[in-house]
């Protein structure tokens, strides 16, 4: 009995490269939760807009709401960055506060707007890098490290504010800051035509940030290696990916984005205070998770994160218009987070099931054994 190993046959393989059927494509579009988010957001906008016409007021409702979406999208990206390697950043708020503080001090000393913003981003990135180094070098869980960092910053940031300024806030009048924070497209005029009043300039900064982050993850070597690290750190290590460096830099990126969000919030309110970032933590998780970013790492969705944030802010705004109190708001936002976590888990299980099913179909049916069985 000689074994016959079949020669590799290229033709057979090509035959098996069947295009996914339209039904499958339709199914995958439905399971893509970004589509669901867009539909949900559209429905809510129509519903709230028709029930409460003040919703469309550019100055008091639409403008502030889009400003919030702009800022919280960046907060969501900050969390999404660490989620991409299956870790988390509980110090987004603290890092945002640090970013705001850094920018405020620089601007207070007469730095131009751009320099101040860069200082703020770097301050946030530095906090993130410290977390990243602790995670990789000391091999401590990111949960613990960032929790400790958030407590440290909770004390440190107000202390520094008190030290550099007499009040607990820093207000600067750097040229351009107010424009960046509070102008809308209505202020941008070309001749006699001006943009709509409800669209804040911060939204464009936010979109630019999203484009850069999305490009980084989708198209660059570092982004790809980061996602692979999130997919399996052990496999990444054994595939010659510098895992430690990727983990550290992704924490730094998270800090930088949080710092930017802090600067944006300071610019929009007109003053920098220690309370910047206090409400960032829960939305930072809501956005990415609703948007389909996996908690276990390896997959991110920048657009999804922003849509998730948009939905959260929209719900909040809608409830405010209907006069629901702050307690009701928090209950609802908590429920939305729980729901999002459940969907994350369900998605996980579903994809594992489909993987199992697909592989079972791939295993050849048991062929009759050519060797005789030995029986007693």
């Amino acid at each position, binding site marked *: 009995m*000689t074994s016959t190993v079949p020669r590799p046959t290229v033709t057979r393989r090509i035959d098996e490269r069947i295009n996914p059927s339209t039904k499958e494509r339709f199914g995958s579009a439905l399971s893509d939760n970004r589509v669901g988010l867009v539909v949900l957001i559209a429905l809510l906008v129509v519903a709230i807009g028709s029930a409460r016409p003040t919703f469309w007021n550019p100055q008091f409702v639409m403008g502030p709401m889009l400003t919030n979406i702009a800022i919280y999208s960046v907060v969501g990206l900050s969390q999404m960055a660490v989620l991409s390697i299956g870790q988390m950043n509980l110090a987004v708020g603290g890092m945002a506060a640090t970013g705001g503080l850094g920018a405020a001090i620089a601007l207070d000393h007469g730095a131009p707007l751009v320099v101040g913003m860069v200082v703020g981003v770097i301050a946030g990135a530095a906090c993130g890098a410290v977390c990243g180094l602790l995670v990789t070098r000391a091999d401590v869980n990111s949960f613990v490290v960032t929790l400790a960092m958030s407590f440290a910053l909770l004390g440190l940031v107000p202390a520094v504010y008190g030290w550099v300024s007499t009040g607990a806030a820093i207000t600067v009048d750097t040229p351009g800051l107010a424009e960046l924070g509070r102008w809308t497209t209505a202020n941008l005029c070309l001749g006699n035509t001006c943009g709509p009043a409800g669209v804040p300039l911060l939204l464009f900064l936010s979109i630019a940030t999203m484009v850069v982050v999305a490009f980084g993850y989708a198209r660059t070597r570092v982004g790809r290696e980061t996602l692979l690290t999130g997919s399996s750190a052990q496999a990444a290590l054994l595939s*010659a990916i510098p895992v430690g460096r990727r983990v550290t830099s992704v924490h730094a990126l998270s800090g930088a984005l949080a710092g930017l969000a802090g600067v944006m919030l300071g610019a929009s309110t007109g003053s920098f205070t220690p309370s910047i970032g206090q409400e960032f933590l829960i939305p930072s998780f809501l956005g990415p998770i609703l948007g389909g970013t996996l908690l276990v790492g390896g997959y991110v969705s920048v657009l999804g994160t922003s849509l998730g944030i948009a939905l959260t802010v929209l719900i909040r705004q809608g409830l405010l218009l209907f006069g629901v109190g702050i307690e009701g708001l928090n209950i609802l936002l908590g429920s939305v987070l729980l729901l999002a976590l459940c969907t994350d888990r369900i998605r996980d299980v579903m994809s594992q099931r489909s993987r*199992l099913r697909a592989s079972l179909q791939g295993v050849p049916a048991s062929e009759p054994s050519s060797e005789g069985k030995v029986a007693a």
Partner: protein
Amino acid sequence: MTTTTSSPWALEVRAVSKAFPGVRALDAVNLRLAPGEVHALLGENGAGKSTLIKILTGIQTADTGQILVGGTERVFHSAHEATAAGIGAVHQERNVVTAFTVAENIALGNTPTRHGRVDWRAVRDGARRVLDMLDFRIDPDTPMNRLSPAQTQLVEIARGLYADSAVLLLDEPTASISDNESGLLFDVVHRLTDQGRAVLFVSHKLEEVFAHCRTATVFRDGRSVAEAVQLADVDRDTVVDLLVGRTLAKLDVPDRAPDRTSTPAIELRGVETERGHRSVDLSVHRGEIVGLYGLVGAGRTELAHALLGLDKITGGEVRVSGEVVRIKDVGDALSRHRIGYVTEDRKAEGLFLDQTVARNLTVTVLGQLSNRWGVLRRKAARVAADEYIDSLDIRVSSRDQIVGQLSGGNQQKVSLGKWLAARTDILVIDEPTVGIDVRTKGAFYRLIWDLADQGKAVLVISSDLAEMVTLVDTIAVMQDFEVTGHVANTHDYDEMSKAVIRLVHRTSENVA
């Protein structure tokens, strides 16, 4: 214990099947275990023994088939149900709670209670009883983390005895304990069978099997190729044939004559590591395939890890093309020394299961596939992925298929392909064909021969002797973190197995 006595079997497994993503672990296997006998379950790595044990102990459920305990059909949904039905087990992996004491671990899951509270006296007495059976003198209150691996294994065995099971499953219980200790274990085993209990003994050590078991079942590639053979009627060679399957040994082996006169591509001289390797000498020339054979736990994978900078090398020297080198990490090994490492555990270490085939194949060459600003050239990446999908004949629906959906053989091809893409000069391949069906194995061997013919130095790590005899040019044998010798491969299985087994046992004889 069951009350039904209609069945002559204490435990019967009928046509049980179980599939995992990418592999059919069990394919309609049968097993019959009579009361009062020690029955051996034999099979190579990945043959499905441990899967069956997990099904019998309720850790996993069978996809199809029946399990009868004392004639009554049972389906176990949890380990607790299996224990309650009278099946006790000693698992291959150590499942102890290191923060607990010896007694607590032994009683775990069956902790005696009184008025809803733990009866600590009964826990200690019960532990003492089974420890005495094993003649294992240790205070039951000793914390587990103070115990050596061998002592831990003895506690595992004690735990299996504690439940007073009608059927006791022993999954490689002697892998990490001394001959003396295993002698005691077998005394206990025979005492138990004298009381009418049935014992299923899983082992790689054929000596033990022939010395202590009456009957045997042999698994190969998830099927039971021999059922309830009387071991008195067969000799060792027959069993080995059943285990490895002669089909493999008959694969047409090419005439290979690697040139060993040049400087070795990689050479280890007196290497010592933090993990305990001592004076390891090993060299692989360009175009040569060297096999590193050893039993599980002999230190082969650990040596590969040390070579790649994942563990520390504390002594001796590593030379790449004649030059002494210090390898910091896998990236260093790849970029500076052109060494690739195909891992043993492809699921956990070799592949990104939830990523696409293309992303997996290009992971080692992302640097070459991106421009100077670090932006990936997508077309080049697609071309590179397709090249290896074609040349390795990986069966995929598209390059964007998720790797986790592929069969075991195709997954292994992806795992190998990513290192071929890196075009390294030296390739370390750890257990190339574990969990892969026989025919794909043949294709893999051809591929590895081709790689050597292209001038690569290949080091194959395997605990499959038939594979070694078929595939490699020279077999280096490792035992207890030492290379005990080298054998030039004649491709004659009987001759080679004798030579290799002699080397495996050399260190233990030296010590004795």
